[in-house]
């Protein structure tokens, strides 16, 4: 496997693992994902 491909896979794995962990933590903290404000604030934080 090319070095860049393995880095790409590593990056994607880290990113999606992080998203899942954040999602689980958010659910445990009691976030209501039906509230669109959460996505707006998430987008703002990312920005």
């Amino acid at each position, binding site marked *: 496997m090319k070095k*860049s491909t393995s*880095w*790409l896979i*590593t*990056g*994607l*794995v*880290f*990113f*999606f*693992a*992080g*998203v*899942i*962990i*954040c*999602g*689980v*933590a*958010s659910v*445990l*903290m009691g976030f209501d994902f039906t509230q669109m404000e959460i996505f707006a604030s998430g987008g703002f934080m990312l920005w």
Partner: protein
Amino acid sequence: MKKEAFLNELRSRLSGLPQSDIEDRISFFGEMIDGRMEDGMSEEDAVAGMESVDAIVAQIMSEIPLTRLVQNRVKPKKGHGVLKIVLLICLFPVWFPLFVALAAVLFSLLVAAWAVIISFYITAGSLVIASLACIIATGAYFGIGRIIAGVGGVGAIFVCIGLSILFFLLSIAMTKGVVRLTRKMFIGLKKSFVGREA
């Protein structure tokens, strides 16, 4: 294709280069074909085994400096020198602004491309810093007993590291692309100085 036809094709594609360069190249490739024929290949096979004329011209273009091509191009030829100089001076108000505008457009495109690339590198760097900040924040959350928020922090660390890797990869790919594009632009510019005087 016969050796003579191959070399004539190459010569016509290289016209515009300094004559000494053309002769050097033609004799080099002629000797290469002769060497193959001495090894027992037929003339057609020896020529077929060579790189294409396009590939050879591109290779030569990348080796010869642009200044040398321009110097050779603007060198006055016998009989036309005075006329060319008069035309150049008379048409100066037309060709000079066009030349400057074209150069400015190409330069601004390159600057814009590099600005985007640099901003991607900076974004990747800032994500690395953000992941370090997340590590500190996560440690603090776990320290004060807010376990769930700490888990969220771990997720944020992963997201920041993942995004920084992806941004670095994207930046490297874009850098390579722009370098390749710049090289192609230069070779294209050099090619515009040769191959018209067959």
